[in-house]
């Protein structure tokens, strides 16, 4: 039994459906959930004589993706035909890009980008009378509505080393694409699709092992599970002295099983050649400027800005940056110049922890009644000890239910913090008297024993007293 340790080498191929109005090469409107075959024309049905005409906006989105990933944008790129027969491919070839893609190189986070290119999506093939698995069905039905939807294919270098890293990185890519506004990036609906190229190699080796391509991982969970399963399969194979065969694999989330997709046909030979019906895309200065002008602040950049500008912790900054609505809520609250002003980190915590915890699943910040400036003044009041943390949470509950002004709620419900106007001292005194043995133990140096006394004070004051102030008074009156 060899003791060799293996290292995963993973690269991803991501297909992104671009949210243009029309298809890649014809004027058919993109539609989700339109009745089958109601969004077609001679071009996307591959009728005899029809010709493709490239969609300007798809190229624009492609350039934005290239800019976001720091790619080198090709001044001239070429469409190729990828020839193969399948019922969801009406022309018998897919118009894609081959050796002259729109974008090359670049990186997102720690993962380098190999290329980004444009192509057209296939139609939908439904296998009649089957559980949805291909094998064993007699006939299939083709719906060409999806056929011709613009796709950007993003291919990474094999820089990923674990299933977890793969899904984490894909999340970063997704928020980046969402921020760009070029796609719905919804994995369940297939507007973001991910295949993984997976291989193992002995730790320390710089050679690449034989890779397999794993398809159909249509959620982040499945991506982790699928890659993990394939890595296990490969490691078992290698440990048993076997060989990994280069092939395309299909991950079945239900069974967790991995099956080979190799058809009875011999290996594919796509016979790529330059698409004669389309001329090379030349990126004009004007197109470039338009793409640059359309670039928003990207999550990674926003995270570092939030750290530097507001001194937030790395975690808080990323959480806010990767969830636009949280980030926007936070920055709006901060700029509401509430008086007293909330400290940035405290405000961030309230947004990330208390606020999100109180939003029911699926409920978005924007549906809730809380206004950013309301949260700002609430956090301001808590920070200034004008109300206790506990009271602050009660106020937040009200805000989420019916919105409104924190100060008003505080007064209406008498949640204002008790300063030591004597009332608090006497409540403390009563509490000490009511817990003699606890008091005794505290006097004899057991600070932890103060619990029951504090508890009574808090009960008496319904949480309006400031915890720090209460324990100060207890210690004072106990003379410790």
């Amino acid at each position, binding site marked *: 039994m060899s003791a060799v340790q293996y290292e995963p080498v993973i690269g991803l191929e991501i297909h992104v459906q671009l949210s243009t109005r029309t298809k890649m090469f014809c004027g058919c409107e993109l539609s989700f959930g339109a009745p*089958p075959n109601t969004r077609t024309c001679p071009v996307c049905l591959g009728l005899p004589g029809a010709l493709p005409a490239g969609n300007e906006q798809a190229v624009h989105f492609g350039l934005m993706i290239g800019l976001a990933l720091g790619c080198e944008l090709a001044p001239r790129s070429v469409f190729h035909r990828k020839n193969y027969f399948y019922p969801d491919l009406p022309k018998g070839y897919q118009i894609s890009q081959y050796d002259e893609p729109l974008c090359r190189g670049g990186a997102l986070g720690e993962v380098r980008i190999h290329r980004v290119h444009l192509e057209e999506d296939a139609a939908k093939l439904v296998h009649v009378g089957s559980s949805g698995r291909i094998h064993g069905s007699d006939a299939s039905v083709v719906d060409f509505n999806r056929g011709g939807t613009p796709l950007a294919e993003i291919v990474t270098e094999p820089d990923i080393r674990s299933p977890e890293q793969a899904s984490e990185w894909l999340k970063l890519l997704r928020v980046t694409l969402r921020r760009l506004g070029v796609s719905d990036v919804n994995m369940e609906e297939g507007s973001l699709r991910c295949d993984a190229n997976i291989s193992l190699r002995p730790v320390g080796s710089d050679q690449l092992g034989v890779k397999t391509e794993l398809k159909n991982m249509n959620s982040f969970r499945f991506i982790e599970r699928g890659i993990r399963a394939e890595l296990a399969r490969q490691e078992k194979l290698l440990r048993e002295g076997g060989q990994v065969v280069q092939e395309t694999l299909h991950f079945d989330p239900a069974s967790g099983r991995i099956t080979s997709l190799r058809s009875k046909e011999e290996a594919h030979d796509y016979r790529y050649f330059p698409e004669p019906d389309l001329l090379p895309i*030349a990126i004009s200065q004007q197109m470039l400027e338009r793409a640059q002008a359309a670039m928003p602040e990207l999550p990674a950049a926003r995270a570092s800005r939030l750290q530097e500008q507001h001194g937030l912790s790395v975690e808080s900054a990323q959480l806010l940056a990767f969830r636009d609505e949280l980030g926007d809520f936070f920055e709006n609250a901060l700029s509401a110049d509430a008086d007293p002003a909330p400290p940035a980190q405290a405000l961030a915590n309230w947004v990330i922890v208390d606020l999100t915890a109180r939003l029911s699943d699926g409920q978005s910040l924007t549906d809730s009644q809380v206004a950013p400036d309301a949260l700002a003044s609430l956090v301001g009041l808590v920070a200034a000890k004008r109300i206790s943390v506990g009271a602050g949470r009660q106020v937040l509950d009200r805000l989420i239910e019916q919105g409104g002004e924190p100060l008003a709620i505080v007064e209406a419900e008498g949640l204002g913090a008790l300063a030591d106007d004597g009332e608090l001292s006497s409540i403390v005194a009563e509490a000490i008297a009511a817990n003699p043995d606890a008091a005794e133990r505290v006097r004899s140096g057991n600070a932890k024993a103060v619990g029951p006394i504090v508890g009574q004070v808090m009960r008496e004051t319904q949480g309006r007293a400031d915890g720090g102030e209460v324990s100060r008074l207890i210690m004072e009156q106990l003379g410790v």
Partner: protein
Amino acid sequence: MIDRDEVLHVARLARLALSEREIEAMRHELSAVLDHVAKIGELDLQGVPPSTHVVEMTGALRPDEPRPCLPREVALGSAPAVSEDGAGFLVPSPQA
């Protein structure tokens, strides 16, 4: 001379069934044509760029504006086989 296996391989790629008679004929005819075509192998084409398009221009892209689609009954009008609900193109299973 192209051999039988090459003919069969290419016919598979082209999804074209051939009868034994056609396979034989194809071997000879393709070989004959390729012999003539092979003459371009004699030319010195060092550093000559391939031309994909003769007219030197780059692609005029289309504005992202919708055009009317075909009514479904028209789209399916010429289909050799249609699904029972009349909504889609019916094809034999990809893997029978």
